[in-house]
């Protein structure tokens, strides 16, 4: 067993373990942390495959931004581990989630079996890179601005939509809060008047 294979198996196991724990653990913050562990292991896998840019971006975007957003949500709602997080899901939604999970598993098996060169090439870590500069940042940059220019600009539009969505939600929330405050003030003003009279 070479070092490469060892690293591959360790990080693969850690990734799957993290993902599983993420789903099963009740404490929301622990859940986020397990997801973090899983992402870190996946980043190792990407880097091992020579996709340096993807590996680091996985950390920057998912661990550095999206998981932080998750943590914010958990903190803002102030969820704790032992609390009752609502009713168990309905039988229908339970059934559908297992069904989708099973479908994904089948798909995964087909992808692994169907890939050219059999399992050897897909599974073990380091294979010869396709091109000399495969996965390098320069390469990714070149591809982004030539072949995949259109999807790239569309990504910009998608991100814009995300901002607009966030703004709309924020506006609605602040308006509701303002209305609540106003109502509260009015009620209080009322009661104090009563006291005076």
């Amino acid at each position, binding site marked *: 067993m070479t070092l490469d294979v060892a690293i591959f198996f360790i990080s693969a196991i850690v990734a799957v373990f993290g993902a599983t724990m993420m789903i099963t653990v009740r*404490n929301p*913050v*622990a859940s986020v*942390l397990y997801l*973090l562990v899983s992402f870190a292991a996946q980043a190792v896998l990407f880097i091992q495959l020579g996709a*340096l*840019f993807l590996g*680091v*971006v996985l*950390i*920057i975007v998912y*661990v*550095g*931004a999206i998981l*932080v957003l998750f*943590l*914010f949500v*958990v*903190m*803002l709602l102030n969820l*704790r*581990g032992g609390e009752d997080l609502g009713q168990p899901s309905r039988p229908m939604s339970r059934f559908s989630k297992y069904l989708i999970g099973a479908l994904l598993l089948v798909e995964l098996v087909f992808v692994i079996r169907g890939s050219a060169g059999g399992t050897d090439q897909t599974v073990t870590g380091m294979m010869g890179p396709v091109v000399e500069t495969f996965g*390098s*940042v320069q390469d990714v940059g070149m591809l982004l601005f030539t072949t995949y220019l259109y999807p790239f600009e569309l990504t910009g539009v998608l991100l814009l939509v995300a901002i607009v969505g966030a703004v709309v939600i924020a506006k609605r929330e602040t308006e509701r809060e303002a209305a609540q405050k106003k109502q509260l003030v009015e009620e209080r003003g009322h009661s104090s008047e009563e006291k005076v009279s």
Partner: protein
Amino acid sequence: MLEMVIITLLKIIAVLAVVLTGCAYSTYLERKVVAAMQHRIGPSYAGPYGLLQPLADAVKLMFKEDIIPDNVERWTYAMAPAISFIPALLTFAVVPFGMDMTIFGREIKMVLSDMNVGVLFVFAITSMGIYGIVLAGWSSGSKYSLLGSIRSSAQMISYEISYGLSIVGVLFIANTLSLSELIAQQETILDWFIFSQPVGFLLYVTCAVAETNRAPFDLPEAESELVAGYHTEYSSMRFSMFFIGEYANMLAVSAVGTVFFLGGWQGPFTEQVPILSFVWFFVKVFMFMFVYIWLRATFPRFRYDQLMNFGWKILLPLAVVNTVVTGFFVVL
């Protein structure tokens, strides 16, 4: 192979020793400099000029009782100090401390990992620094901690983008993401990127101070309102881990800034006396640290709304404009 492993391990020990000593003496430096600026003497009892003060502090903290409140979330509470310290340490894995040297006939790079996506690595590590703070605040079960950590994390994410963008101008000119190549391109003092990217440099310094939660951006531990912010409930070694982490972060940001804008270890006479490259590097990092402390002694604290406005409405647009303008200059 075995040789490689031994060299790597030696490098790791060296980096750890340098960084930890650096952290310890940064606290000394800060106390001395602030004292001098306020016409005080500062630490002066332990050793000559108080030079053994950091050691005495370390021993003292080691012997302190570890008080853990009842309503903390045990695991996250215990892990948070480590999570805030380790990313700060990790940055030093890609920072070149000096020029390549030949020792016992072997060419040895004075950097632990000369990866060609070093800049991205630094950015990734910086973005992870937020976790220790968030987890500490959340798990402590105290109002001050929670408020401090929410404030602190919102502040960090507000300045992180400008922090990343301030470097992009340099990358335009250099066309590389490797830290050692960046240094190689700044051979003479006129090649330093601070001269071609003055706005970028100012942005970097500002965002770096905000990212490390230092004065005048030290709202998370605004002691007059939040006790000690996210580490209110910590004591003993766990508290000092946050403390070391803060200084390690300052050092990391200074070292990286030195590489990006001040030519890293470059300086006169390095060709003749390679050891001098270390000296230049440490002198530059020291200057950065001095500015940090100077800022602390000079400026009053921002108000929170000022802080957020400054980050989103001034720094971010400025960073974007700087990037685009640099782009036009490089093309034309």
